[in-house]
């Protein structure tokens, strides 16, 4: 027996894939922001070192706060990168399911409700 295709289910896989992509893009933005903060903190530390004429003791009161902020920013970058990797993996899975379902449905003459009525950006970029 060949089961009936439920086009709502196809819409759900497409929506899940769209959502996964949006989440991944947000994650990439968050990573970019975190890297920006880290770069700023590093720049600040470099300016301090330039000002005081050499490498500074991280425990020095004038430096301690900046070093702590830099370490926190480094941790944030690592966490954001980890999150992006997870989101990329989710996106890959969602896209694989979407593609398989869409191809199968199209071969069987079923179209999802909105995918052909609205412009869709075809994603061709890397997920790294």
């Amino acid at each position, binding site marked *: 027996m060949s*089961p009936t295709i439920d086009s709502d289910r196809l819409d759900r896989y497409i929506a899940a894939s769209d959502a996964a992509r949006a989440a991944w893009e947000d994650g990439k933005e968050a990573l970019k922001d975190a890297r920006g903060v880290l770069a700023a903190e590093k720049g600040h530390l470099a300016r301090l070192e330039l000002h005081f004429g050499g490498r500074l003791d991280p425990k020095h009161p004038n430096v301690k706060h900046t070093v702590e902020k830099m370490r926190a920013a480094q941790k944030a970058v690592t966490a954001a990168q980890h999150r992006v990797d997870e989101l990329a993996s989710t996106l890959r*899975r969602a896209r694989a399911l979407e593609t398989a*379902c869409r191809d199968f449905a199209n071969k069987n003459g079923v179209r999802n409700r909105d995918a052909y009525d609205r412009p869709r950006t075809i994603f061709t970029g890397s997920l790294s």
Partner: protein
Amino acid sequence: MKIRSLASSLANAVSAQRSAAQEIQRNFDEIRSRIREIRGQLRDAHSAAPDTAGIRERATIVVSQLADEARGRIYFQHLRTEADEFDAATFIKSAATVSILHAPPSVGGGTGLGFTSKTNVTPLHLEALLRPDDLTAMLVREAEAGFEGASELRLSTKEREALIQRLTSELDELERADEAACREAESAGFNVERRTDADPRWLLAADSDLRAA
């Protein structure tokens, strides 16, 4: 006292849910591991070597195809008069003096072996045309020797078809069970990941069909 009882009840419920989630995961793992197993068996069945009868059948087909190709590409002539017909025995006997012709020989032009233009004729073509039984026997012998001692699965055509049908049917049932379990678990509030290689037939199936199957 009441708060303590509520907290205890909540802890029990959470524990029960954790056990249920673990049980669900175990069941999914079992179904999915069986799916992988069946897929492997299907691959093996598709690539299984034929048995002796199957080898003979295939060899006969190959030889017959070669002979057909040869008929289209080669012309033999052992013509003394227009009425002469090709006679393999005479042709072979006179093979030592046969000339290779690049165009159909003229009537009465003697014995000739010709090739139609721009086509290749291999010794196998000639063998298939002139000694099909020998070539078939040789192919069977060589194939048998190749399979000797190999632990490869060997099936007759019927066995292969029956096995593929049985495995395909079992795989279909497992795919259906996997998707049905995913939907049940989701409706009970559990988060389930679908396999990326799941069968889209069942991924997109209407609930009623999924249950009815």
